């Protein structure tokens, strides 16, 4: 819809252009919004939003005088096609720029798309006028009354394709429409405020995912979160009053393959958090064996659901120290059991805790089904930012965390070995070359010089 709205203001009528395309939009997408006013009318000064801030519905309402929406629009479109790289003549927004330069304007680069969807409603509420949907031809025929507020909404044409060229053409077409509308408004000497925005972005900027992609790669831990969220304390299992097992995970996702798709359930909210007391009955720990049983109800349509971690501590002669391994992870659901082996990767010296960014049975699996026929083949476990300690727990804090990511990856080691070999070969070769000497045994500086006759 495109809406032209006029609002009675202090100095006259303000017409508002509102162009938008109706579409369902995800609430977390961002669209830009440009607003400007005709000569002689100034938008109320507002503080420009800080970079990266997404304007919400309430804020938009407070900013709002007009809205003008178009086909999918992104900040990138302004950058790409706006002639900002010194090529002013290539800009597709000639009319828009002229309008912005001639009057005061408001630029909100990132407005939540749910807010822009409500712009026409907000404007209606503000000026108590129903929107009129028009295009430039009908506008030319319309006689606007300068004393009455009106809301005019212009829908700017768009194409659904993601093709670059057509986007440019679309935007320049939109700009022409804007130019026509503004010139008509100017001819009729109607003061207006215009808003140009969209209902959904043409380009979705993917949020930089802070999660690392694999267990074996590294990232700065500090760069993972923009706003540090308060972390929950670890889950403690106490036996005879003293803490025996500690567990922490950011996400505890169990999935079962049912009727052709995976059904997931995150157990972390039921396990960690303020005031969350999961049922740990069945857990036990002693010097050599620790067993943590987490009991849940009504998970994935199973009445009783248990997640069991089984850890063992043994002495290994060759390294002459105690190590603990997470031998098995059980899932018990309504009497049936699925078992995963974990001793291959989940191990640490018994004095330390084990921590890993991702312990799962699917990607870079650290857990594997106990056997080919085990129920575990239909299940997937995925534990994020997982830390566990089953022995040598002192107090409620983890001991030093032995991380699953090593300092040098196998690839780095292979490169180092091969490079070392090359360096040795190079050294050997250099040695040989450097010991080449010209024979000077028969050199006689005082004797006659050698003459090489040109002719035979």
């Amino acid at each position, binding site marked *: 819809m495109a809406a032209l709205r006029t609002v009675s203001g202090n100095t006259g009528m303000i017409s508002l252009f509102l162009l938008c395309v109706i579409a369902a939009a995800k609430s977390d997408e961002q669209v830009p919004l440009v607003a400007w006013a005709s000569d002689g009318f100034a938008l109320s000064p507002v503080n420009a939003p800080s970079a990266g801030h997404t304007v919400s519905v309430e804020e938009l309402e407070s900013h709002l005088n007009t809205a003008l929406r178009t086909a999918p629009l992104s900040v990138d479109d302004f950058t790409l096609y706006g002639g900002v790289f010194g090529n002013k003549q290539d800009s597709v927004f000639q009319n828009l720029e002229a309008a912005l330069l001639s009057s005061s304007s408001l630029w909100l680069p990132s407005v939540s798309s749910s807010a822009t969807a409500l712009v026409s409603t907000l404007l209606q509420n503000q000026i108590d006028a129903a929107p009129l949907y028009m295009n430039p031809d009908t506008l030319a025929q319309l006689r606007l009354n300068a004393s009455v507020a009106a809301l005019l909404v212009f829908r700017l044409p768009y194409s659904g394709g993601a093709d670059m060229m057509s986007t440019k053409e679309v935007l320049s077409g939109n700009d022409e429409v804007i130019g026509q509308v503004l010139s008509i408004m100017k001819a009729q000497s109607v003061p207006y405020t215009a808003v140009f925005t969209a209902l959904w972005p043409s380009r979705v900027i993917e949020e930089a995912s802070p999660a690392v992609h694999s267990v074996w790669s590294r990232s700065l831990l500090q760069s993972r979160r923009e706003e540090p969220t308060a972390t929950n304390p670890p889950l403690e299992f106490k036996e005879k009053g003293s803490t025996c097992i500690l567990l922490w995970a950011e996400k505890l996702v169990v999935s079962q393959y049912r009727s052709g798709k995976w059904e997931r359930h995150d157990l972390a909210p039921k396990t960690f958090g303020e005031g969350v007391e999961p049922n740990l009955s069945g857990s036990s720990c002693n010097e050599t064996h620790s067993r943590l049983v987490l009991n849940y109800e009504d998970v994935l349509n199973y009445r009783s659901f248990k997640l069991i971690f089984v850890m063992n501590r043994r002495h290994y002669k060759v*390294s002459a120290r105690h190590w603990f391994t997470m031998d098995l992870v059980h899932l018990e659901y309504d009497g049936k059991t699925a078992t995963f082996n974990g001793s291959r990767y989940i191990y640490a010296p018994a004095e330390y805790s084990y921590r890993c960014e991702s312990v799962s049975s699917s990607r870079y699996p650290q857990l594997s089904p106990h056997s080919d026929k085990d129920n575990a083949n239909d299940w997937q476990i995925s534990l994020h930012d997982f830390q566990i300690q089953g022995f040598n727990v002192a107090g409620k804090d983890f001991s030093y965390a*032995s991380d699953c990511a090593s300092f040098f990856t*196998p690839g780095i*080691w*292979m490169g180092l*070995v091969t490079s070392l070999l090359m360096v040795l070969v190079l050294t050997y070769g250099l*040695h040989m070359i450097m010991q080449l000497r010209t024979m000077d045994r028969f050199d006689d500086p005082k004797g006659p010089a050698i003459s090489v006759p040109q002719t035979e």
Partner: protein
Amino acid sequence: MNGHAILYTGVTLAFWSTILIVGICYTIFDLGFRFDVAWFLTETSPFMWANLGIGLAISLSVVGAAWGIYITGSSIIGGGVKAPRIKTKNLVSIIFCEAVAIYGIIMAIVISNLAENFSGTTPETIGAKNYQAGYSMFGAGLTVGFSNLFCGICVGIVGSGAALADAQNASLFVKILIVEIFGSAIGLFGVIVAILQASRFLKSMFIYISSTLALLNMSCCGQKLNVCFENVYFEYI
């Protein structure tokens, strides 16, 4: 200090200081448990080992052959100035050195044919057989490479002596050639052992080589030694 001293002290210093600093870091951070040779051996790809074996097989053999030819060749050329008759006969020594390089390339091709793709990303799924294959190929390449390296040098030095002795006294050549043959045999030992390492089921290859040796022996049996080797020489030519 001359260039050699600088080079060797530099490399040695870099190597030992790396080892020392890494060891100190492991110790003071109590991360000694992270030093895991088994992890290194199971996580590195068997392909790396196999290809290192193939590369070493051919390259070390060629180094040995080249070194031998360079030593013998310079002696033949030098001696040939005053005694041109030695030129043709002493090419046998060059051929013995060249044979070493041929052993190397044959083994490299044999070993590379044994390398196949495997499926599996974790040590369990890769399986013990694939690891064995990788390490065997590495060992085989190392075996044939080093034995050919020293065989080539040996044959080269003996051949150089043979050329110079031949220049002085023509009857000495054949006697010295016997020494050269023994030197050449040690390269063959390396090839045989490498084949045994690389593939227990390629007994046929072993049989083939030993049969050619036996044939050679039988064809020369009953003939005078110099005639025998002239036949061999002409066969190559």
